[in-house]
């Protein structure tokens, strides 16, 4: 199935809750977090689509820390979670994006929330842990949401653009 056909099928099925991104290099859709599980389950189970494979989950921090470049950057500060899907049977791929605020309710320290898809693809388990670890996105209903790469007592989310590097960790200087 070609990307325009996929987009057309999804547009008829989920007319109101998705935004198509047809002109992007990788065609895909944008979903609100509350409809994510519904759309992902459809993408996996529909026989014409049947995305059996979740390639990766990525967290992207859209923030321009430099005030001089802020006027030209062309985006408001937000976070994105990007899901790349593939199908073995039909040999096609797809991109699903979720837009999030940088902090839940604009309160510093309250992590933004996305429902987990680890019950649809087991791969998502560790990928979501990695995104949680490095970007600070809370995946609700995840079976075991702990840090996966950094130490358990690490503070902060290093791949956020406003991350402040630690000065010491367990008595060892970090710089």
């Amino acid at each position: 199935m070609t990307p325009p056909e996929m987009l057309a099928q999804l547009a008829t099925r989920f007319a109101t809750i998705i935004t198509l991104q047809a002109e992007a290099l990788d065609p895909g859709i944008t979903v609100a977090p509350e409809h994510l599980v519904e759309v992902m389950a459809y993408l996996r189970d529909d026989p014409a689509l049947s995305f059996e494979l979740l390639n990766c989950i990525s967290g992207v921090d859209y923030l321009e820390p430099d005030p001089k470049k802020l006027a030209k950057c062309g985006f408001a500060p937000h976070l994105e979670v990007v899901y790349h899907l593939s199908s073995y049977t039909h040999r096609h791929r797809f991109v699903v994006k979720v837009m999030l605020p940088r902090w839940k309710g604009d309160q510093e320290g309250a992590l933004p929330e996305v429902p987990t898809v680890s019950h649809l693809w087991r791969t998502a388990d560790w990928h979501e842990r990695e995104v949680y670890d490095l970007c600070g996105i809370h995946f609700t209903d995840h079976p075991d949401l702990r840090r996966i790469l950094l130490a358990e007592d690490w503070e902060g989310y290093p791949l956020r653009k406003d991350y402040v590097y630690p000065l010491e960790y367990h008595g060892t200087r970090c710089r």
Partner: protein
Amino acid sequence: MGWLEGRWEESVVTTTLEQAINWARESSLWPMTFGLACCAIEMMATGASRYDLDRFGAGAFRATPRQADLMIVAGTVNFKMADRVRRLYNQMPEPKFVIAMGACTCGGGPYYKYGYNVVKGVDLIVPVDVYVPGCPPRPEALLEGLMRVQDKVRGMKELTRGQPIQLPVPKRTGEVLLPDELSTLEKANAFAGETKERAKPTKA
């Protein structure tokens, strides 16, 4: 050993007990299997047949710190690993030696500025005897580092003076032979002035 030597039949060799112990110890430095990153590949190459770490008695890589004398920290140490490195070092029996292999363990290497999770040199975690820089170091460089550890073992005066270890003086390699025109200070100054004159732009 002057007055003792040659007083017995030819098959008797005289030495001090300390030298004999040091000789045995330096010829059987058992390293711990401790590869953390890409430097470990080079360490394995050093242990393989072409470079053959076993020639120096250090080819028996032990899988436990309790049987090891030498810790070759080969690769990037991050903070999650740092506590484990310190614990493994503490579990090794005395006397113990540490080689910091590669740029990352010497001082953070390419992760010095933006590596939020990388220890800026393993000497912040454990005492290091020999630093082997390089990214990764050649097997020859690791062999050189091992020989410097052997020099250090040879200088140990464990029986007579407790535990002080003499600083190793490189003997086999490491000497830089200066060319003749730089061999003395006067000659070197003259050479520098001459080069400066020659580097001046001509007016023509």
